[in-house]
């Protein structure tokens, strides 16, 4: 399967920012500083369980619900 990481990243950014453009940038930066660069993941990126686990942890830390 492909694209799960991008899906999770988009969900974290959307929920945490509430669509506010400034907070979207802030949240992208927070995700990068936590160890996952949002720019490296596309819809075609093969799923990597290590990255997906890391993103679930990041979502939890940022207080958002992701599936």
């Amino acid at each position: 399967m492909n694209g799960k990481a991008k899906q999770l990243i988009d969900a974290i950014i959307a929920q945490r920012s509430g669509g506010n453009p400034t907070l979207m940038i802030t949240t992208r930066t927070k995700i990068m500083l936590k160890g996952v660069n949002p720019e490296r993941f596309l819809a075609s990126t093969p799923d990597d369980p290590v990255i997906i686990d890391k993103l679930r942890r990041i979502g939890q830390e940022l207080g958002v619900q992701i599936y």
Partner: protein
Amino acid sequence: MKCATSLVPTAEAAVADIRAQIGPVDGKWVIFFASSAYDPQAVSAAMKRAFPTALTCGCTTAGEIALGHMTKHSLVAMVVGDDLLDAVAIEVVTGISTRIDLSEAFAAFEKRFGEPAAKWPHDRYVGLVLIDGLSKAEERINDAIGNITDVSFIGGSAGDDLAFQATHVFADGQSYGDAAVLVLLKTRHGFGTIKTQSFKPTKRVLVATRVDEAAREVLEFDGRPAAQVYAEAVGAVDGDIAPFFQNHPVGLMLGNEPYVRSPQQRKGDAIAFYCNIAAGMELTILEGTSIIDDTRADIAKAKTDLGGIAGMINFNCILRTLELEQRGLTEDYGALFADIPTVGFSTYGESLIGHVNQTATILAFKNA
């Protein structure tokens, strides 16, 4: 808003000099930066006695900035009043080298401001964070702050004039080690933040494949000894990489924006950094540009964006200060801040969303 600098060498007398320069203004909040040449407890207590009705905070430094000049072994202060601030609160978090728990500090802020952190308007509220510069806790503190709130917290790590023995943060007349001071400001007219670093990305990207995060060391880049891979990337033909550190740190890139991680020293085949680097992080080798030109441009942009700046607090990396000193540019750098009331200091690390190196993070208060 008023700023002052004192070069008087004893704490009590320097504070008296600052008080005299400020004049009969008490202000709502006083932020000050003191050389480690001063006794830390004496200077913090004296500042509180000098401004008894204001909340006071600050830290020790590796050099100071105010009134258009970079100085050494001085005390600088900024007094901010009702004209720019609706409210201010200060909290201290101790024992940060072993455990970060910000829950009490943020509960106190929520009580003081009457709103949960999640509802603080991020265009009116701004935080400051001053951290013991030898605690190696900056990443964890910034991360914990960012988990709790989307309000920007900007700041720096306390210095000790390059002695690397003990750094201190100050709050309400006390001096603390192994601690961070958190400040929450409700601004009257809004604010802006500036993050300026003088580097451009090269095409060479290294992946940290083996690290010791707690020690801030990268053991391997691209599956090979870190020092060897870095040497190849920067063209250090004889393997002597230290001379390349200043002009070629590495950066986490988000678009064209680098979040700089500066090499500190070679440790055998490993490289120690001033920031921790997680396994799997992709790091671009950076190349230095002009600190003066870049900072001038970023301040000018902030002035335009904000429609005028009433005052600034500048957290300027000690590595930038050392480069400015080597190039004889400290007066030129100070002059960039001559027309706007500014205080700041040379830091052991800078904060804005996260912990960065070789950067200046600047809080700019918007004009009325």
